[in-house]
């Protein structure tokens, strides 16, 4: 739970940084009011969804790599 909450914070921080960068690229100051009113396009939303997925893949890799599932299962039999 704590790790998931921390991951949500990191993800939110990444998206805030992304908003800053996109505002800067558009020549607008990355001030809080501009960040709050920034409305991502569908393409930006898709990029962010892909970034979230990549982050979740990294966080859960130890659980999900195909070999890990079986290695963990086989390690149980030797215990």
């Amino acid at each position: 739970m704590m790790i998931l909450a921390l991951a949500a914070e990191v993800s939110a921080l990444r998206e805030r940084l992304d908003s800053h960068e996109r505002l800067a690229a558009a020549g607008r100051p990355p001030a809080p009011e501009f960040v709050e009113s920034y409305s991502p396009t569908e393409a930006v939303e898709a990029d962010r969804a892909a970034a979230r997925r990549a982050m979740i893949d990294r966080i859960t890799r130890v659980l999900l790599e195909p070999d890990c599932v079986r290695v963990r299962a086989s390690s149980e039999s030797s215990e």
Partner: protein
Amino acid sequence: MPVPQSHHAMLIEETHDERARDAFIASLREFTMAEVYPRLRSLYTDVLAPRHAERHGGAPASVDAVRSVMEDSPFYMGYSLLVRGTQELLWDTVGEAVERQLPALITKAATLGAGKGSLTLDESLSLPNYTAAVDIHVMPGGFHTDITENDVFAGALYDRGVHLFAFGGLGPLNDELGVATAAAVRNRFPGFAPERVLDLGCGAGHSTLPLAEAFPGAIVHGVDLGAPMLRYATARAAALDHAIHFSQQDATRTNFPDASFDLITSTLLLHEMPRPAILALFRECHRLLRPGGIMAHHDLLRWPDEPFDAFMMAWTTRHNNEPYERASGTLKFPDDCVAAGFDASDVFVVAQPGAYLEEVYQVSGIRGARKRREGGK
């Protein structure tokens, strides 16, 4: 998230960072159900069940045997931590945003009023123990707890929270199950035109508004135990310009006179009730229906027999505060409807596999019965 939530006047406003946290939670939910959940089956089928067979001469033959195999698996533990942790994080995250703006939401609800509908609360209503005893699906305070005067917290929390839970799969207005219920009734009974409709356990009204849309001209009522849900539902219906009459009542013993309704529905209600309460609900439906009237309940259709499937179906019972879920899946159709007064030949079942959790809720659909007219159908 694949489907953004439609804005309406009662939906919470979120900051940039709150929206970002929401998006992460929805992504994590979707990932867990789409990527992690299916691997449990392959781990069991390819590794754990064969190993059990080697040691014990056969695959696990009971739910308890499956449990002993699965609960020792680090992968299963990891899955459980992900699902439970995401569930808690979801309510915490949305709850923080709701609390921040709760006074404004209460003011909005007062300003919107009931629109073309109405709201009748009953402070004397005693909550059934089965509801009071547990915060269903780990939602803090459940559907019924008032945390302040004229509270709408539970409704605001559920409206946003269930959208993230389903990673948008319930549609922009969280109403696709209600839409499906209405469509199933219309398809099954062509020409059926109810004048009076009742939605039981209506919650925030997600399944109630589609009934008003599907049956124009009908007078639509919704009942629920939870005052904060009903206050929210009333304001939400007004914001979306629907005339719904909400009242705080126990669906198993309402104050409506006999033969008050042509159509009575529920959506995701039965699985929140123990078996005796469901049977009382069916009896109440029979009492409230006019001859020729229809009850239609959208929920689990059955409970799996195969031990692994049954074990996995019961995950939410073990770990997500869904103590009664098995009761709805193991109802006896048509017998339980017959016991409530319906005729066995008037009972119907419409499979409606869940669109957003097909793998998990492949056994959902609409079940119900039509009340016989005197002297025939």
